């Protein structure tokens, strides 16, 4: 460095010989455009949110020698998922001609009912029976309500003819 400086100062008027000074600034506009284009592209194509999952465990197939415990009518609480996003529930077992009630998936619908019911009977077992015309969203919603209300014991059960009759005769 020192040498160059010396040479420089000794050179006097050498500026004429030099090539014309080029501007060191490059036009960056196209590059930036491209960068933003890529940025937008990746932002839009990335799926950030990994899908969430809800774990369910179905009961193991009962073996013939296993003893099955009968559910007490006083513990049973049945939720019926009907067509057109309708939701019904009754307390007790279907054989005892229970009173069917209409409810809904909203926060003050079945959720309140479940919370109240559990306050009365903590040993409640919820039986979820989906009619064939119900949709999958209803099923997920009701399973979700179980998690929200902290209901530990619940089961997905096949709907029976009696349950279907109960819905049609109630006219709800």
């Amino acid at each position, binding site marked *: 460095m020192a040498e160059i400086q010396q040479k420089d100062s000794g050179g006097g008027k050498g500026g004429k010989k030099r090539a014309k000074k080029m501007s060191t600034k490059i036009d960056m506009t196209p590059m930036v455009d491209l960068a933003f284009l890529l940025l937008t592209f990746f932002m839009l194509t990335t799926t950030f949110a990994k899908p969430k999952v809800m774990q369910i465990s179905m009961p*193991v197939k009962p073996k013939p020698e296993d003893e099955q415990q009968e559910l007490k009518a006083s513990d049973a609480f049945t939720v019926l998922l009907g067509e057109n996003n309708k939701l019904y529930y009754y307390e007790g077992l279907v054989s005892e001609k229970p009173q069917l009630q209409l409810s809904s998936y909203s926060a003050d619908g079945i959720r309140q009912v479940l919370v109240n019911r559990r306050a009365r009977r903590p040993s409640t077992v919820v039986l979820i029976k989906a009619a064939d015309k119900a949709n999958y969203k209803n099923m997920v919603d009701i399973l979700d309500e179980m998690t*929200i209300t902290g209901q530990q014991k619940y089961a997905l059960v096949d709907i029976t003819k009696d349950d279907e009759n109960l819905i049609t005769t109630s006219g709800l």
Partner: protein
Amino acid sequence: MVDLAFLLVTFFMLTATPTEDTAVVVDTPSSISEKSLPDKGVLTITIDKDKRVFFSSDSQPVKLKALETVGAKYGQSFSDKEKKQFSLLPDFGLEAQQIKGFVNLPAEQRKAFKQPGIPTDSLNNQLAEWVMAARSANISVLNTAPYIAIKGDGLADVPTVKKVIKILQEKNLNRFYLVTDLETKPVASN
């Protein structure tokens, strides 16, 4: 600013897992569950609103092995190229007999082809074959039993979902996941 833009570009490029071009688009219902789908070793059974059932695995070797097993069962043999092509499919809903024809279609025709769904009825229960074949393939490739996820459309009907669950239960697979979207957790008040 430009530095930042490039930083972001790099970031998105590295983290991006491009949305896969699946054969069927389903709109999953939402739940409050915060559990994420595992990264590896997932067998997904997709049920769309037209009662069609699709199957997929996130690992190519697993798909390849499963294809060999199921193909042998239904008297179908595949060339290496066909197998490779099949393992690149994100998901499929075809009868075993249709696969050969399907993988040999050009890409754009394959996209236009309306897949009928995997047969699930008791006489021709190919879904169970696929699940069991993919399960054992998963165990031999990744050394773990796969997670089984059911990805249903919100409007899918209950009988189909129940049928799929029943098929899994018959094979003694009693724990599985339901794929959902995230929803904010409401408070259950008294």
